[in-house]
């Protein structure tokens, strides 16, 4: 008999007022009993509406059924058939707009906690099973992957399984892309990402860090060196600023810089050398996951007041629901329908305030969301000593500038075929944020997967 509870079984979490001063993971995960109990809420629908909402078509009711049967290893393997990073996706996917949005149980209550169950299965496997990966038989062909975010890692993982000799080139000293430099430890422990990367290396993937593709090594040079196909998974790492007065004062950061200092360079830990300012009042501009992560990091570094300044209303916020909820619990102050117009500073050029204007929602714009318009005469100032701009990123032009013939659109995104990732250059494929602009982990993985398949077909067709 199914569990007919209208709500998801809550996932144990660190107390908000404790966790807002540490960097440990917020959600602690289900126990085996809890997982089975939540799994019982799944009705195992015949037509599986949830699966259609998953960009990589995880076999959702099937893995949940295995959890019900206490076959946790089986559940993990079922997810793994189509999703190469379950522990990551279970934590960071926007399930509420994907699989869970289509769950039949939402007609009368909350959806099944699909994300939580996915995470449970992955964590359970990592903790309880220590399987040595078996090296696939080499097929004698070399391929290169530029960028080691979720798109690149997935593509490399699928190709190595097919027997390819895969080399990943990464610009940073560490692989993982946004998973390591952007998303904070308290949401996605870095040990989990590292474990996934280690598995790839075990399978024989080679990793070359400190190599900036395009500049240090070009696409043509890679072909000359015998790589037969190349995947570009270089992400969307170029930070945008608002172009308002005062943005270059001391204490104004892009979210990328703020988060990189904290997450990749571990500025929050005493044993690392990275400096980060010590701030009392912080304003974070934006309403996405990046803004929530920045605000919650600022709080954890000891800021007393942390504001989210967002120009639309809360309904339009692109952040995952859970992150907004967590941020509020941790004491982040939401200034919605507000837009900064100027950043203020003292006579030494250090930020001491931000001037904002109130907004109201007008007619819908191209994105279908109602366009925010300023309310005349409603300007006000917030006293802050740090401002973090989390208003979006676009693809870095380095790859395009150094790859003649590589077509990009007017937003700087690489033009690639939707189902194969094929770019304007033969043998060159692309996917993830580099193609779509800033999007999600799961879409990047999906694109990496599709490209791996197309690259394999391309190389085999050449023979």
């Amino acid at each position, binding site marked *: 008999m199914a569990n007919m509870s209208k709500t998801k079984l809550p996932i144990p979490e660190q107390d908000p007022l404790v966790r807002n001063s540490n960097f440990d993971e917020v959600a602690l995960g289900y126990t085996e009993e809890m997982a089975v109990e939540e799994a019982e809420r799944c009705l195992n629908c015949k037509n599986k509406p949830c699966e259609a909402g998953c960009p990589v078509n995880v076999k959702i009711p099937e893995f949940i059924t295995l959890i019900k049967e206490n076959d946790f290893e089986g559940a993990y393997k079922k997810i793994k058939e189509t999703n190469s990073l379950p522990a990551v996706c279970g934590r960071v996917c926007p399930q509420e707009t994907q699989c869970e949005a289509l769950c039949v149980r939402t007609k009368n209550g909350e959806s099944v906690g699909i994300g939580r169950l996915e995470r449970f299965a992955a964590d359970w496997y990592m903790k309880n099973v220590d399987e040595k990966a078996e090296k696939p038989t080499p097929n004698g062909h070399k391929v290169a992957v530029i960028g080691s975010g979720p798109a690149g890692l997935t593509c490399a993982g699928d190709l190595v399984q097919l027997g390819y000799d895969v080399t990943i080139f990464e610009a940073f000293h560490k692989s993982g892309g946004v998973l390591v430099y952007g998303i904070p430890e308290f949401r996605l422990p870095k040990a989990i990402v590292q474990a996934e990367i280690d598995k790839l290396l075990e399978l024989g993937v080679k990793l070359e860090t400190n190599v900036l593709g395009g500049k240090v090594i070009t696409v043509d040079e890679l072909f000359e060196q015998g790589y037969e196909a190349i995947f570009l998974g270089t992400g969307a790492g170029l*930070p945008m600023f608002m172009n308002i007065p005062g943005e270059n004062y*001391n204490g104004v950061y892009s979210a*990328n810089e703020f988060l990189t200092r904290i997450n990749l360079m571990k500025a929050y830990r005493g044993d690392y*050398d990275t*400096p980060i300012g010590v701030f009392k009042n912080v304003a974070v501009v934006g309403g996405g996951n990046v803004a929530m992560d920045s605000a919650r990091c600022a709080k954890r570094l000891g800021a007393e007041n942390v504001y989210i300044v967002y120009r639309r209303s809360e309904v339009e916020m692109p952040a995952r629901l859970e992150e907004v909820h967590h941020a509020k619990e941790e004491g982040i102050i939401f200034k919605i329908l507000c837009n900064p117009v100027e950043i203020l500073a003292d006579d030494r*050029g250090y930020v001491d305030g931000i001037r904002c204007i109130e907004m109201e929602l007008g007619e819908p714009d191209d994105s279908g969301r109602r366009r925010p318009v300023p309310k005349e005469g409603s300007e006000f100032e917030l006293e802050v000593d740090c401002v973090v701009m989390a208003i979006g990123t676009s693809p870095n*032009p380095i790859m395009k500038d150094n790859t003649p013939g590589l077509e990009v659109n007017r937003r700087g995104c690489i033009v690639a075929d939707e189902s194969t990732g094929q770019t304007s250059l033969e043998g060159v494929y692309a996917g993830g944020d580099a193609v779509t602009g800033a999007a999600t982990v799961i879409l990047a993985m999906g694109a990496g997967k599709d490209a791996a398949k197309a690259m394999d077909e391309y190389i085999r067709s050449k023979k």
Partner: protein
Amino acid sequence: MYKITFKKRLNEQVVQMEILAPLVAKKAQPGQFIILRVNEEGERIPLTIAGYDREKGTVQVIFQIVGKTTLSLSQKEEGEFISDFAGPLGKPSEIEGVQKAIVVGGGLGTAIAYPYAKALHDNGAEVDMIAGFKTKDLVILEDEMKRACTRLHIMTDDGSYGGSGMVTVRLKELLEEDKEKNSYDLVVAIGPLIMMKFCALTTKEYGVKTVVSLNPIMIDGTGMCGGCRVTVGGETKFACVDGPEFDAHQVDFDEAIRRSAFYKEQETKAYEAHKCRLEEMR
């Protein structure tokens, strides 16, 4: 891991090193820089490429011990390794077509200015190099510089060696002497921000094209953080990808000076703490 193949102390404060990094050496050009990390807990710091040997696969850097990272780097010996060495980054210097130039280096900046002078000189240009130091004991690379230019003008603040006074004194003299002919087509100034600012002000009077190499706070060096932003001609630029060289007459030096001071306090603390620990260990 990247091996240190050569190390030499140029003076009390300044160290020259060669690092084995064939991919970097293969592509390096004058004016570009690298980013390195000494160890896992270390910061990423940018250093200008002072030279390279494509055959040996080595890249030369010259640095001054100013903080914790440069101090720990200076304690590494030949044969030891550092964690990371990424590059070449930034745009190369534009030296084509230059016939007569003045290259100004101040303090450690001379180490960066000298390869610039050399590149111009090798390319057939007539080069006056002005190298400024606080005092005689701090003079570095004198022989190298002599070989890399047509005329070397050493200046010391206290007059203990070469000419007496700041580099701008000599710079003004050269430009004044040349006023009629107006034969210099480029001035390059590399050194402390304040020196570059005054060089820019000096050359502006004479209307000679002037280039400076900026070395702001950086993390990635690839354009992804924006920490290195500088205002040039009223527009925000990322020094790591749009530079590091910019038209000196367009740079907002006061803003650059302010931004570069941002982490000074914390860095000084880290440096002092590190020195104390080292002394305790002795």
